[in-house]
Each structure stands twice: as C-alpha cells, then as structure tokens.
C-alpha cells in the first residue's frame, strides 16, 4: 500500500472511537468537575440530612434513651431521603442542554457512560452522607461501637441507592415536574436496602454479628451494579426518543 492509498483509506474510515475506559473516565471526570462548580448544591443533601435529623429530637423527645433506640433507623431513613432528593438533578441538566443526546449517540455503550455518571453522583452524595452519618449519630446518642458499622453500611447501601434511583431519575427526566413521581416509583425499591442497612447498625448496637447484614448489602450492590446500568440506559433512550 502506497503512502497516498493509506491516506485515503484513513480518511474514508470512520474515526476510531476512544476505548470504553477512556469514555468512562472522561464522563466521570466531567461530572465531578461540573458538580464541584456548583458547590452550594453539593452541600444541600448534607444540610438536608442534618436538618431532618434535627427534627426528630424536637418532634419525638430529647431523651437520650429514646433517641438511642431509634437512632439507627432515623439515620438510615434520613440518609435515604437525602440521597433520593439529590437524584432528580442527576440527568436533568444534561437533558436540558442536550449533552444526554450526545451520550446516546456516542459509540461507547450508554450503560457504561451512565454508570460513570452514577459513580460521580455517589462519590459526591452517597460517600459524604456515609461520612457525616456518624457525626449525626453522636447527636442522637447512638451507642458506642456502632459508628463504623453505620458508616460502612451507608457506604455500601448508598451505592445501591444511587444505582436503583438512577433508573427512576432516567425514567422521569423527560417529565416536567417529575420530583414527586420519582420518589413514588423509587421508594418501594429502596426497602430491601433500608432493611439490611438498619439491620446492620441495630445488630452492632446490641453486639451481634454484622457480617450477614453487610454481606446482604454487598449482594444487593452486586446485583444492582450488574442490572441497573442496562435499565438506566434503556430508560434514558425512552426519555429522549419517546
């Protein structure tokens, strides 16, 4: 093949798309950068989390014994709601400015790109929530010895919450006021994660083994990691193409 032929053939060939990993990291980096540019929004779920936790001693009782009893459940439910609240914006801006359509047209599978977006979302909401939860646990008189388990269970659980919730966010992104609808369709699917998450913390409080609960949380995460990206991708296609 001469030099000239080679040149023509490269022109005629479609440009070689970047590998899957390149696209994945690029999407991840882009989303993290975009989220860091709106730092106020980044803090909102955490403030919401702290605020909801503040409501309970006021609403129920400031008695430490009462609070210690319900602390695991309260922390988990409040963290779950905070994660849910942040989901609505997961695909919203990309949908509005058209970058979602570019993702659909990209040669890389949409499932992988949406997984990168979910990972970015988890890094900046689920992870901070898991780290802040022990701090709020102190205010609720959560018994000693369960703080590490609380953080660990939220770390594992919130990743599943982000993955499952992203399906709902993708399904409702085309609907103008999809916020309440998103909660309606996603909350029932959150129940298994909640059960095992709270179960782990409660087991730690009464000094039982936590391995079974954490293993179940890990299993839920593995299952949602395997299945959710495809559902997210299909839902995004539906939201954009109708």
């Amino acid at each position: 093949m001469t030099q000239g032929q080679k040149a023509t053939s490269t022109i005629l060939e479609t440009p070689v798309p970047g590998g899957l990993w390149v696209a994945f990291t690029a999407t991840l980096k882009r989303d993290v950068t975009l989220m860091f540019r709106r730092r106020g929004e980044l803090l909102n779920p955490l403030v919401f989390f702290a605020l909801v936790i503040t409501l309970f001693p006021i609403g129920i009782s400031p008695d430490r014994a009462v609070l210690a009893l319900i602390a695991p459940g309260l922390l988990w439910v409040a963290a779950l709601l905070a994660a849910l609240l942040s989901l609505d914006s997961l695909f919203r801006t990309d949908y509005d400015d058209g970058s979602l359509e570019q993702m659909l047209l990209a040669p890389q599978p949409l499932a992988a790109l949406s997984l990168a977006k979910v990972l970015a979302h988890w890094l900046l909401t689920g992870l901070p929530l898991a780290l802040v939860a022990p701090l709020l646990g102190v205010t609720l008189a959560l018994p000693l010895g369960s703080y590490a388990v609380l953080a660990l269970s939220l770390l594992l659980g919130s990743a599943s919450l982000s993955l499952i919730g992203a399906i709902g966010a993708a399904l409702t992104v085309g609907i103008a006021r999809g916020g309440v609808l998103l909660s309606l369709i996603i909350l029932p699917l959150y129940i298994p994660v909640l059960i095992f998450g709270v179960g782990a913390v409660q087991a730690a409080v009464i000094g039982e083994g936590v391995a079974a609960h954490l293993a179940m949380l890990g299993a839920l995460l593995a299952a949602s990691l395997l299945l959710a990206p495809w559902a997210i991708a299909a839902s995004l296609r539906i939201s954009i193409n109708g």
Partner: protein
Amino acid sequence: MWTFIHKWGSPKWFYAISAKVQPWCWAVSLILIATGTVWGLAFTPTEVNQGQGDSFRIIYVHVPAAFLAQSVFVSMAAASLVFMVWKVKVADMAATVMAPFGAVMTFVALFSGAVWGVPTWGTWWMWDARLTSMLILLFLFLGVIALRSAFTRREGGSKAASVLAMVGVINIPIIKYSVDWWFTLHQSATFTLTSRPLMPMEMWLPLLIMVLGFYCFFIALTLMRTRSEILRREIDKRWVRDLIKEAQ
C-alpha cells in the same frame, strides 16, 4: 408458529378472537365464584382449632385476591417484556389495563386482611411480613400507573411503565425475602399466627374453587378491558370505523 404469534399481536385479530373466548371466561368465572362463595360461606364448618370462628371465612376473598395481586404484577411485567422486545401493541394495551386491576386486588387483599385482623389480632393493622410486602406491592402498582399517566405522549408512557414493571418484578422476590428477614428479627413472642396449620379438606376445596374463579375473572376482565383499549387506541383505523358503522 411465528405467524400464529404475529396474529395475536394484531389488534384486529385479537379483537375478533377475544370476542369468542370472552363469554366462556365470564361464564366459568361466575360459576366458580358463585359455587365457591356459597360453599365457603354456608357449607364449610366453622373454624374451631384457633378459635377464629366464622371470621376465618374471609379467606375466601382474601387469599384469592392476594394470589391474584402478585400474579397480575408478574403478568403485567410479562406483557411489558413482550411489548418491549417484539413491539406487540396488544401486549402494551393488556399491561395498561392490568395495572389498575392489580392495584384493586392488592387493596382488596389488604382491606380484607385488616378486617380479619380485628377479631383475630384485635387490631386493624399489624406490621406483619405478609401485610407489609402486600403494601409495598400496592405502592409498586401505583408507581407504574402514575408513571404511565405522567407522560404526555402515550408511547413514551408505555415504554417507561414497561421498564418500571420489569424492574419491579425483579425486585418483588428481593423485597419479599428481605421483609421476611426483617420481620423474623423483630417478631414479638406473643404473636404466633404466622405458621398456619394445615387446612382441612372441606375448607380447602372451596378456597381452591375461589382461587380458580378469581383467575378466570382476571382473564375475562383483562380480555374485556383490552378490547375497549383496542377500540380507544385504534379509533382511526378503518376496521374500527367499519365496526362502529355496523353497530349503528
């Protein structure tokens, strides 16, 4: 084989064939439900082992409704799968009409459970494992219905509801087992009705008849409502117009 399946996918053919099947389904379901009701309410002996008395007879509505609630969700998800994979429009119409019916059946199961709970448990509501999973199932149904109606374009709503139904059906066993796990951890010692003793034959037979009757009722009602859904969606088609002309 394939032509047969494709025929079922054609709304016109479905409309014609279901007209022939439908009366039989109605007849069978009415006969079964009537027999089961009379037998169960009037001829079955009163429950004595657990001292429930006549209040146990509510199972003749409660159990079939609870069975149906779960079956309807699975059928709806199956119809959604057929719609998403093979683009069979009739399957989507069937899934559309199944959702409200399933929600109603779930509600009936919950309500009859609550009514039964008053004389038996002494309370309208108990966070019992089965009641809780049933309540979650009701929310899943409501979510599918709400998502479908939130879309302004019908096609988008159909596809979104189909995805949600399929995601839901994968989650139903997970929810069920996790709720069972949760309940066994929190179960109070005084409550021992979770393991039902084996039912005597004369109680069990009318229940079986009722369950079969409810299933036939489900099929008959789905056929009927799918037929009206076909007419509603295909109103622009020539064969529907001809049909309307004939009727006038």
